C-alpha cells in the first residue's frame, strides 16, 4: 500500500484524539470544562524526548499537515511540501506534532461539537478563542505526549502568531521558533478584510444567527464570499496576473454577469469548495482570533516588552510579494526582538506568490529554512550540521 505514496511522503497517517478533563480557562472569561484535540504525528520521538516539532496551523488549516489519510486521498496534507522524510522538517530526524486548534471544524472541540451543559451543539455560543488560548491548549497536548520542551515551534500566518505566543507564554518549553509570513498584529486593513468576510457570512439568510445546523442549513453563499475575498489577499497581483491575466472562458464577451474571466471562475470555484468543507462559526471565530492577537497591546504598544520573556532564537521569514502580512510587518517583529536583545535571524524570501508563498515549494525558502532545521537537529544530537 505504501508503494503508492511518493518516497518523500510520510505516507498513510491516522489522526488521533486527545481528551482533556481539566478545565481550561479562556481569555474571554469563560471556561471549557473538557475538550478534545485531534492531532497527527509524523516521525519518532527520541528517547530524550528532545526532537519534537510543533506545527501551528493558519486560518483554514487543520491537523492534517502531511501524508495521506487513505490511498484514495487526492491531495496530501496542507504542508506536505515541507514535512516528510528528507524534507525541510525532516521526519527522519524530528517527531512532528500537528493539531487542529480549539474552535476548529476538523475534529477538535469547536462550534460543531456538543456542549455538555446543554446536550446541544455549541454553534454560535462556542467561546471566542484567542491565540493565547490555543497555545495553552497546545501545551496541554504536549504534556500528554510527554514533551517537556519542543525542539522547535513552527507556524505560518496565524500559525506564526501562535509560535510567537509560545515564546511569551512558555519560554522554557521552546528551544527554537520559526515565525513565517506572520505579523505581530493585524493592520486596520487586515481587520477590514476580515470584517467583510464576517459580514458576508452573517448576512447570509441561511446563517440563522449561527444556528444554521438547527435549520439544517449551511450559509454557503456567505462562506463562499468570505473565502473569495480572503483568497484575493492570499495571492499577489503578479501571481493572479500571470495565472489568469484577462483570459476569458469563452472567446468573446457576453455582456452579462455570468462568469466570463478565468479569475472569476477560479474564485467562484475556490469559494464553492470551501463553503461545503468549512464551518461558518469556525471561520468567524478564527478571524476574531486573528484580529485580537496583539501581544504588545498589554505593554502600551511596546512589542519588545511583550517579547521580554522569550528565551530562544527566532527565525523570521517573510515573502517579497506578500501584501496581507507584508515584509514590513515581519521587520517590525525583528526590530522589536533586536531592541529586546534576542537572538533572531530574518530573511525576506523572493517569491511571486504573495501570502500563499509560505505553503509553496521555493528553492531559496527551502535552503534557508532547511539549513535552520538541520542546525536544530545538530544541536540535539551534538553533531556538526
Amino acid at each position, binding site marked *: 500500500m505504501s508503494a503508492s505514496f511518493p518516497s518523500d511522503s510520510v505516507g498513510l497517517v491516522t489522526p488521533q484524539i486527545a481528551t482533556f478533563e481539566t478545565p481550561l480557562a479562556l481569555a474571554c472569561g469563560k471556561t471549557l470544562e473538557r475538550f478534545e484535540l485531534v492531532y497527527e504525528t509524523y516521525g519518532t520521538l527520541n528517547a530524550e524526548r528532545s526532537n519534537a516539532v510543533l506545527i501551528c496551523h493558519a486560518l483554514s488549516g487543520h491537523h492534517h499537515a502531511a501524508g495521506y489519510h487513505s490511498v484514495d486521498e487526492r491531495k496530501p496534507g496542507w504542508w506536505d511540501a515541507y514535512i516528510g522524510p528528507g524534507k525541510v522538517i525532516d521526519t527522519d530526524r524530528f517527531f512532528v506534532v500537528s493539531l487542529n486548534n480549539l474552535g476548529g471544524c476538523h475534529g477538535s472541540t469547536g462550534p460543531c461539537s456538543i456542549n455538555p451543559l446543554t446536550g446541544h451543539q455549541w454553534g454560535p455560543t462556542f467561546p471566542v478563542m484567542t491565540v493565547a488560548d490555543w497555545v495553552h491548549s497546545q501545551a496541554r497536548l504536549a504534556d500528554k505526549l510527554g514533551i517537556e520542551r519542543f525542539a522547535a515551534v513552527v507556524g505560518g500566518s496565524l500559525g506564526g502568531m501562535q509560535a510567537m505566543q509560545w515564546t511569551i507564554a512558555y519560554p522554557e518549553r521552546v528551544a527554537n521558533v520559526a515565525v513565517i509570513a506572520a505579523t505581530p498584529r493585524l493592520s486596520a486593513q487586515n481587520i477590514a478584510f476580515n470584517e467583510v468576510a464576517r459580514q458576508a457570512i452573517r448576512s447570509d439568510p441561511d446563517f440563522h444567527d449561527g444556528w444554521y445546523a438547527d435549520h439544517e442549513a449551511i450559509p454557503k453563499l456567505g462562506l463562499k464570499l468570505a473565502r473569495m475575498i480572503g483568497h484575493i489577499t492570499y495571492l499577489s497581483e503578479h501571481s493572479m496576473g500571470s495565472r489568469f491575466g484577462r483570459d476569458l472562458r469563452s472567446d468573446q464577451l457576453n455582456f452579462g454577469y455570468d462568469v466570463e474571466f478565468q479569475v472569476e471562475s477560479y474564485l467562484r470555484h475556490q469559494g464553492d469548495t470551501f463553503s461545503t468543507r468549512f464551518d461558518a462559526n469556525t471561520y468567524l471565530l478564527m478571524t476574531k482570533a486573528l484580529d485580537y492577537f496583539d501581544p504588545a497591546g498589554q505593554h502600551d504598544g511596546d512589542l519588545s516588552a511583550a517579547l521580554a520573556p522569550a528565551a530562544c*532564537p527566532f*527565525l523570521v521569514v517573510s515573502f517579497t510579494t506578500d501584501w496581507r502580512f507584508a515584509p514590513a510587518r515581519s*521587520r517590525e517583529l*525583528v*526590530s522589536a526582538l*533586536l*531592541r529586546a536583545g534576542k*537572538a*533572531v*535571524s*530574518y*530573511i*525576506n524570501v*523572493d517569491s511571486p506568490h504573495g501570502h500563499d508563498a509560505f505553503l509553496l515549494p521555493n528553492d*531559496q525558502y527551502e*535552503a*534557508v529554512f*532547511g*539549513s*535552520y532545521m*538541520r*542546525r536544530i537537529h545538530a*544541536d540535539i544530537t551534538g553533531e556538526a*550540521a
Partner: protein
Amino acid sequence: MRADLELIYDWIPNDARILDLGCGDGTLLAALARHKNVTGYGLEIDADGIAACLGKGVNVLEQNLDDGLGNFVDDACDLVIMTQALQVLRRPDTMLDQMLRVAPECIIAFPNFAYWKHRLHLAFRGRMPVSRSLPHAWYDTPNIHLSTFQDFASLCRDKGITIVDEAVGSADHEGHWTSRLWPNLFGETAIFRVRRGR
C-alpha cells in the same frame, strides 16, 4: 579564514557583542562565538550566505546596508565590523557615522586603491586597475566608492574619529600585517580600528 578576518578575529575581545556588516557565510561570527564567547548578528543580502549562517547557528538578518542601521538602537553592541563592503556603499561616510552610533568602536577593512600595483596599472596602461582584490571592469563593478588607506585616515580626522589601530595586508593572505612603513603604497587591503570621538 581569510587573512583580514584572522587579524580582526585577534582584535576582538572575549564576550563582546558585535555586529558584522556583510557577514558572508558567517565564518568570523561562528569562530568568535565558539572560541571567544562573542554574541551578535550578521547582516547579509546573499541568500546562500544567509543559509550558511543559519547552518552555523549564526544570527543573520537579510538587510541591505544602504538602507542603514535604523533597526539598531544607539550602543546596541560593543563593536561593529565591516569587511570588503565600504567601497560598495552609496554613502560610506554616513555609514561610518551610523556604525559609531550603534557601537563605540568599529573595525573596517577595504581594498586600498593606492596599492602600488594599482598605481602602476593606471600609470602605465592608462586603464582602471583590475586585480585580485579589484576583479571587476569599470562598468560592472559594485565598487562605487574606491578609496585609499590615506583617504580613510583623512576622513576619520575630518570627522573627529580616533584611529585606534591600523594594518595592511595582501590579498593572497600570505603577507605579514606588521609592515607599517608605507602602508598606503604596499597595502593591498587596509584595516582600521576606530573609536567614536577624539
